[in-house]
């Protein structure tokens, strides 16, 4: 496994700066956000949320390498987020399953009853 300093070296050789990483992360986040807002399918919504979480992970890692490559706190945080996103996905899917059992639907439009 490469050390993070080596990763930075490889990236530098390839002409990649932190801006490229941030650009990718932004696009990913935007795609995820657009998916959450526009999708009517609950499973797809959950997947888009995962996309947004991964965009955030990418930002953490990239910024960590850019600011202080000898420190691994960004990477550690990314691992935490992965763990939480796994748990979130499990809970989310369980809710979707329960909803589907009760209503035979996975359309978000059908679940707008929680209002005044």
């Amino acid at each position, binding site marked *: 496994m490469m050390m993070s300093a080596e990763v930075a070296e490889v990236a530098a050789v390839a002409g990649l700066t932190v801006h490229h990483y941030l650009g990718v992360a932004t696009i990913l986040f935007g795609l995820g*956000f657009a998916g*959450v*807002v*526009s*999708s009517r399918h609950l499973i797809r*919504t959950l997947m888009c949320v995962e996309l947004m979480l991964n965009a955030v992970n990418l930002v953490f890692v990239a910024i960590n390498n850019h600011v202080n490559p000898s420190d691994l706190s960004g990477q550690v945080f990314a691992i935490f987020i992965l763990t939480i996103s796994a748990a979130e996905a499990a809970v989310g899917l369980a809710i979707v399953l329960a909803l589907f059992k009760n209503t035979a639907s996975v359309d*978000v*439009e059908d*679940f*707008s*009853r*929680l*209002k*005044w």
Partner: protein
Amino acid sequence: MNWFSDFFLNNLWLVPLYPLLAFLAISIGRAIQVTCPKTGEKTALLPQIFAPILTMTATGLGLLHAISAIQWLFAQPHEAVQAVERNWTWLSAGNLELKIGTLLDANSVLMLTVVTFVSLLIQYYTHGYMCHDKGYAKFFGYLALFNFSMLGLVLATNLPQMYMFWELVGVSSYLLIGFWFHKPAAAAASLKAFLVNRVGDFGFLIGILFLLFFSLNWWQGYVGLHPEQALLSFQGFESLAGFLSQTLPAWLLGTIAILIFAGPMAKSAQFPLHTWLPDAMEGPTPISALIHAATMVAAGVYLIARVFPIISISPDMAMPFITWTGVITAVVGAIIAVSQTDIKKALAYSTMSQLGFMVAAMGLGAYTAGLFHLFTHAFFKAMLFLCSGSVIHACEDEQDMRQMGGLFKKLPITGLTYLIGTIAISGLFWTSGFWSKDEILAAALHENTAVYAILTATAGLTAFYMFRTFFMTFMGDYRGKAHVHHEDKVMTLPLQILAVPSIFIGLVLSGFVGLPAFGDYITYSLQNAPEHHPHSLLDAMFNQVGNISQLVALVGVALSSAFYYFKVFKTDGVKKVLAPIYNLSQNKFYMDDIYDGIVEGGVLLQSQLNAGFDKYVIDGLVNLVGTVTLLLGKLVTRLNSGRLQTYVATIGFGVVGVWLLYQWMFKG
């Protein structure tokens, strides 16, 4: 003087205390129920018969104090009576220290004697009058409470103490007027008396506060020089008057004096605050005699005498005001009394008229005359009321004189004493009323001819309506249906005793029979005081003023007998001729209607307006706040659509929006 009278003299503080203890004993004794161990019956702790014994003992002890006080007074030369003031601290707040105590001087000796003497007789009479009443013991308790209040008022050393007892007599009066509270008229009358007195007492209180406000520093200096005297002590009023007349403008002095006079106006039933007194006749007759004729209503005149120095420094404002209030009261009372058919109401209006005489005398500066009339009036008016009580008792609670007549045969002692009282109040034949009324008229002649003329005419009217009541009640044929009982000995004894001072007290204190004259001790030197000093007994008995007043009174008697005894004239014709005055008299000068109008048209309308303002404006504002909040809330609830995407989009675009705003504000 022996140690016995020394004890009475040195412990005047006991005088109000006796009746207070009697009142407490009777009240507590009535309230606690005990079970008789033998029979198992429940009875009051204190048997009923102890109530009159306790009350009369308390009053009797007070009378002993009064007698030793008279001895003390007459032992001193009248030019230099050394007043004795004793004070105890009542309440202190910082520099302000209010005291309570006893003041022994000529005025308090006078009132102490009148109150204890008349009270004792009336309490004895009450035993006969109320013996069949369920509230017998309670009545004596209230009588004791009244005596406590009245004696505290009489002995008051300073104005705040007087005010406190002034209110206490008001409370006793309220309780006793409403003694038969199950009668709606009595309940309403007690309430009316209380409310009307509130009006006057409010003015009185403001007057006291004004007086204190303008003289507090001066008083503290004064009390420093006279440590035995209290703040606002009556003894210091002459010096205070000197200070005030130099520091305050005349209009302010007059205002203060008139505000203080508002108290006597209500308590002594002066026009236009007199309307409670006739209604107060709903109370038991002994109360009408004691409180609403002899003592409490005279307290107003006594108060004027006490604050006389303050009043006398406003000769152009307060004194004419007081004089004319008294004159109007005297005339109005007399005119109304003429048309009354209820014997007690007629006497009540007569009391009002006589109080008007006293107040007018005070306003004229005739200090001695006013108090002398108070003194003599207490005896004969108490007696007249007790006579009316005896008549009412004998006629089975009938009070309408049209249902009486010819009662002289059945009730000879009552009739005779009533006749004596009538002669005395008319000021005829040198009975006591002659001497005191004569002095008032002489002072009026000296000061103001118009006042003299009106009061003399009123004196004639007094004779007319008093003899009218006498003829209607005791002469002619019996017109009523009730069976007339014989008079009760318990009730006639006080009448016989009171008849003696009613006839002779004026002559005795005229100064020509070996005893000191009333005016020797009870006097207030005013710079231009009315002069009336007869040189001899004959001069006092036959002078211009006295002859005229007796003549006018005799005309009144003659007219009265022509109308109501000999029936030479028919009253119906005269009623038609004098229709405007008769209507005024019959309707009591419409004063009650005017007050009703004021209350209904003014107070009730005002209260309705206020209620409307409260309902629509104040409540409207409160409701408006609520409604606006509710509407805004409804508007905002539309945002809560329940759609997940909308929420997410709002969050997302919101974050971007905040970021852009941040950029624009701090970076741009």
